[in-house]
């Protein structure tokens, strides 16, 4: 029997891929392979043809210069991404792309960078940089460990659920104690680290959602996550 194909689309790896965000792509790819699927990772960069058949979409952070480079292209594929989100395609957007999946990013100089508005969130550039180890507590995913490094501060719109509550660190902004945002199967977050290696429960949520949606059922193989478990224990003891 030929193996079932699962396609991961990485948005803008050339310009939006910083602080190990590639690790998220690698973790999805390998876990899918270990679960017995024919996993494929494809890149989408500005000007590319948007692929017709994608099962998981991920994106990362970048320099301010990287955000400028991709913004126009992102707006052009925005309607497409919204449609896919409403069809329950799982997505993970980190840092810079999390911001641009929101309504807008207003820089500290007052310049407004329009986002695609898939997430009902707003971001404001601040002089203070929120940097350091971060731990969240989430109803869905339990404890989440990562590293944040951003000067944009994000505020959730009405009725938008965060990814989690901050236990240590800053999160979306320096005031409300929320981190990330959720919409259907879309996750937005500031957590690098990379996020997925030390939080395999989130990787498996994305994978299981995608596979079940496409094929109706999911592999019952079990992956040895003991290194991830020990790495989480070590992370829990580290200073900010």
């Amino acid at each position, binding site marked *: 029997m030929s193996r079932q194909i699962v396609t991961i689309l990485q948005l803008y*790896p*050339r*310009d939006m*891929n*910083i*602080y*190990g*965000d*590639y*690790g998220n792509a*690698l*973790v999805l790819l*390998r876990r899918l392979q270990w679960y017995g699927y024919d996993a494929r990772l494809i*890149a989408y*960069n500005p000007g590319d043809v948007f692929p017709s058949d994608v099962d998981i979409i991920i994106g990362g952070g970048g*320099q*301010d*210069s990287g955000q400028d480079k991709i913004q126009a292209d992102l707006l052009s594929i925005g309607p497409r991404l919204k449609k896919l989100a409403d069809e329950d395609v799982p997505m993970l957007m980190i840092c810079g792309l999390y911001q641009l999946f929101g309504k807008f990013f207003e820089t500290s100089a007052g310049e407004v960078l329009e986002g695609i508005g898939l997430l009902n969130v707003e971001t404001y550039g601040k002089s203070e*940089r929120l*940097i*350091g*180890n971060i731990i969240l507590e989430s109803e869905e995913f339990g404890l989440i460990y990562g*590293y944040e*490094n951003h*000067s944009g501060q994000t505020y959730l719109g009405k009725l938008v659920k965060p990814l989690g509550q901050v236990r240590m660190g800053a999160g979306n902004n320096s005031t409300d104690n929320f981190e990330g945002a959720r919409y259907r199967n879309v996750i937005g977050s500031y957590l*690098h*680290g*990379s996020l997925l*290696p*030390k939080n395999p429960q989130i990787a498996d949520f994305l994978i299981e959602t995608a596979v079940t949606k496409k094929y109706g059922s999911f592999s019952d193989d079990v992956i040895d996550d003991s*290194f*991830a478990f*020990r*790495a989480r*224990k*070590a*992370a829990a003891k*580290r*200073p*900010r």
Partner: protein
Amino acid sequence: MPKRYVTILGKAVRAAMKLRGGGSALPGLVVERIDPNFIKATLATLPRGVVIISGTNGKTTTTKMVVELLESQGLKVFTNRTGSNFTRGVAAALLGEINFAGKLDADIAVLELDEAHAVHFVRTIPPRYSLILNVMRDQLDRFGEIDTTAELLRAITTATSDAVVLNREDGRIAALQNTLISQRVSFFGLSDELLPTFPSDDQLHGGNSRLVTAKADVILKNFKNKTATFYMDGRDVTTDLKLNGIYNVYNAAAALALVRVILGKDIDQTKLLARLAHITPAFGRGETFIVDGKPLELVLVKNPSGFRLGLQSFDPTHYATMIAINDNYADGRDMSWLWDVSFESLRDTGVEQVSGIRAYDMALRLQYDEVPLSDVTTNLSKGFKQFMIDNPKKPKRIYCTYTAMLKIRRQIGKIIDVESIG
């Protein structure tokens, strides 16, 4: 307080610290507090001025090379040898060199400065020459984004009075020439053949290749089996080296370019190359120790580019490999960078030992590159001992972050006589 008393006080603190061992920057701090002009006044007396070397990777090794190359030309050189590369470290190093009248017996000062501290330093003491090596994703949790770090480095170049030497192959560094008006600018670079072996963070993810096509004063053309070919003055110059790893050899090209700018026509090329052939790496930067008749190599890794270059430079075949990852302040707290390095080149040989505070982050990274590993422990002393016991017959190589390197070096010191870290 008169300078003479400041000097005596500082020297006394330094002597006291030496007695209790360690603390290279504290006496400098004491002097800096009492007389903030201490460094400026002392360095102002040097006939050939001050040289600053900065960048994220390779400062220590390059500074060591520049010092030795200048000495080969008969110059007396003052430097902050201890690797304590903040302003205080400079003051501390000065205290060790000056006489009790506060006079520094040197022709020129060559200082390695951390980019953030260099910005403050150049405001007080503008250098005559500066060399900017690179800007990589290192310590970004301290400075924010890579573009910000490049701006810190720009401040050093614009404060420089005479000449600036830049890395042609690092887009952000090469672009620093655009804001330089009165300074002479000179480049060091790589041949087209070697360029792909130094992928930048941008290139790794499909970014642009070389952006600047300016002529480089010194080009590293080739490096094989410890023999390097540099292209200078329109001809190839081939020399044997004691340096390990192609990135150290590229730093040699940077050092040559800087020394050529400082000395101009007065340079004695024969003596220069003779000295270059004998330069050994700075501590932990590809150092080799002999333990029980087998080589033990330490490769310092601080950021993705450095780690990638290390893995590319050293063939793992027949070697036992250990990786030690700490996340203390000096290492950088962020572990994300491990995910920007591919470890697939270790898949065939595997890794014998993974250790350090973040050993399990590293083990996890290897798991996802499907690299087999034999043992993991967060206890670095234990991990190092186990690594030595488990691999008695093999040459060994340890990739380690900065504070892990210091700790391993102390462990090696218990087995053999290792030069004091200072």
